[in-house]
């Protein structure tokens, strides 16, 4: 099954909700740093978990442009499809 942005976003949200400290009302538009109170290290460590799930590696420079869960999902989807620039 192809990984779509929506399916990846949903998987990310499920993973985030497994952490009791994450607010319960997060959506694809939630901002990872501001709304989830993740510091830079926590973001990098969380992305590592998702990378394993999807078998991709997200280059660190791409993380700089990511603000919301949907941004992360879109980045992962393009890497997975091999279309990331």
């Amino acid at each position, binding site marked *: 099954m192809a990984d779509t942005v929506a399916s990846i976003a949903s998987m990310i949200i499920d993973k985030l909700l497994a952490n009791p400290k994450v607010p319960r009302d997060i959506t694809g538009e939630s901002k990872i740093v501001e709304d989830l109170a993740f*510091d830079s290290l*926590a973001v*990098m460590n969380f992305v590592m978990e998702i990378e394993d799930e999807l078998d991709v590696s997200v*280059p*660190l420079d791409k993380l700089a442009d990511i603000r919301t869960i949907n941004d992360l999902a879109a980045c992962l989807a393009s890497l997975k499809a091999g279309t990331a620039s």
Partner: protein
Amino acid sequence: MTDIFAKYAGLKTAAAGLTAHSPRNPFGVVIDHPVSATVGLIEGRETLLFGTNNYLGLSQSTAAAEAAIGTVRREGVGTTGSRIANGTYALHRKLETRLAEVLRRRHCMIFSTGYQANLGAISALAGKDDVLLLDADSHASIYDASRLGYAQVIRFRHNDPADLDRRLSRLKDHQGAKLIVVEGIYSMTGNVAPMREFAEVKKKHGAYLLADEAHSFGVLGENGRGLAERDGCEDDVDFVVGTFSKSLGTVGGYCASNLDGLELIRLCSRPYMFTASLPPEIIAATLAALDEMIARPELRTQLYANAKQLNHGLHALGLKTSAHVSPVVAVTLDNVEQALAFWNRLLELGVYVNLSLPPATPDEHPLLRCSVMAVHTPEEIDRALGIFAQVKKDVLG
């Protein structure tokens, strides 16, 4: 006008919170002056130093001091120039040649700090079409190097060759060069890299391997060349980076390699080219300290014995420390409040260690980072352990 400091509002609050609960700023400690390698005067009290990275005690080497004094009288206090202009003296070349001999590498270039050695070597080695693979717990200088260069940067799980292998497999069609960066001993935790396993992974994928031996040079290996020497895989480490500001007690850094291309890095590494070179007296002191390190292998034996005494002692007190013996010992505490109280009390009773708070620590826990020296006496270590026991009782109950 936009307040240029507005973005640091969160930092300001966090810093104010720290000092509100602490009688002193943990990041503003002043050592009035060192009394010896192991004792410094802090707040008027003689304090045992257990957080200096001065592993062999050579910051107080008489030979190094004499070499510096003689050189400063002869050559002055600074070079006022870059290595590619007026900042290369015969002494700079002499130290590069001597280090290359000691490290058994054909080429060596020295930088003005250890930070700049990583910054300058890594950012120049990994170019636009290349991939840098960094251990997740890499030092800030390695992360900053990755931002200064133009390579794609991929992070792998700390000390996990299998994870590195997976990530390199994903890059099998990538045409650029791949440079893996690991450290010998990790500065915050004292963890030691599985260097030989990393070397196997790099060979399998045709990548290059750079080892930052900042905390392991002078510490590991029969001759003190670091972890790669200890693990018998120096030929598989393409670039070795290190610093003079730990085991050699001065300041500066180096990158050494058998690859002739390293000499080209002198012409394109911005942190090498666009900064003043090390002052001649520092070079002279470093040469003398290097000779002392080589002439006194017993310092390494004593360092290991001292590390064992401190590691086992802290462990016996029921403090959370790593099981393996390393000259860097991290005591993990549950929260920042506890760590702050523990650190302050240690200092008041006469022991200085480093306080490390997240996100500068590998997880969300604060650390009391202790480093031991070859020149600590068993009595000094016992005294420090006694103070740790007292503080544990006072703070943790």
